[in-house]
């Protein structure tokens, strides 16, 4: 039986592709204008007194969202 080898940095680094597909939003839209269930879970972040929302089940798929707000790069992990 083959013994289970631990995951090492070198092993991960040797892989060419990543397992998850990050979400890279290019634009946003008013939350109030989008048809969503009223009970839809959201993750909210605040930047310069503005609020930005992500749909939690979409983040559960992507695990990472990254982009730019007002010239500043951000990364959201879930």
């Amino acid at each position, binding site marked *: 039986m083959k013994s289970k080898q631990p995951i090492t940095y070198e092993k991960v680094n040797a892989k060419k592709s990543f397992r998850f597909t990050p979400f890279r939003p290019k634009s946003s839209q008013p939350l*109030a204008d989008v048809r969503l269930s009223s*009970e839809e879970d959201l993750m909210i972040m605040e930047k310069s007194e503005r609020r930005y*929302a*992500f749909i939690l089940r*979409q983040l559960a798929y992507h695990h*990472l969202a990254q982009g730019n707000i007002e010239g500043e790069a951000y990364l959201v992990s879930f």
Partner: protein
Amino acid sequence: MMDEETRSLWDPMTGKAFKGPMAGAAMDIWPVFYSTTKKETSTFKNTQLFLSKNRNPQKWVFQKIFRPLLGLDSRGFIPPYFFGTMSAPIDPRLPKLTQGLGVIADKKARYYPLDCIAPGETIREIWGGEELMITRAEDSAIVEAVWSSTGEKPMQLLSRWYGFAFTYPNCEVFQTTDQ
């Protein structure tokens, strides 16, 4: 997580790189909050939504058919291979998929399992001489920690146990008096 440019490994909870060319570097971190469409739109009129257009047929079939059939929405599901990618054993104090809120303040980390807080309940605790309120929403699994005196929110993460305990291995675990 690994970045594409330098292939350094970063802890997604602390924003610190711990392996590779960027080891030792740290990103600024911001707390995020949880809400529902109803709650958010009733309080804030100008929230912007980032909507993923990703269409993956496998994901659709899994979410619409298999998740409800297997009851995964209530007990959670992580693909089995995922745990093999973790570089340390999972803390056995709680079941690994336990959902809860981790609070980090005053160089202390504490985990509040969701099951320990009833819907609508508020737990009050003293942290470094200040009262911290941990409240679970009446109608959802959203839990939030707020300092009583200022209304500000400490660093907090709605997270499964395996992830929080991995990042904060010496964290305390909140228990109700009957536990």
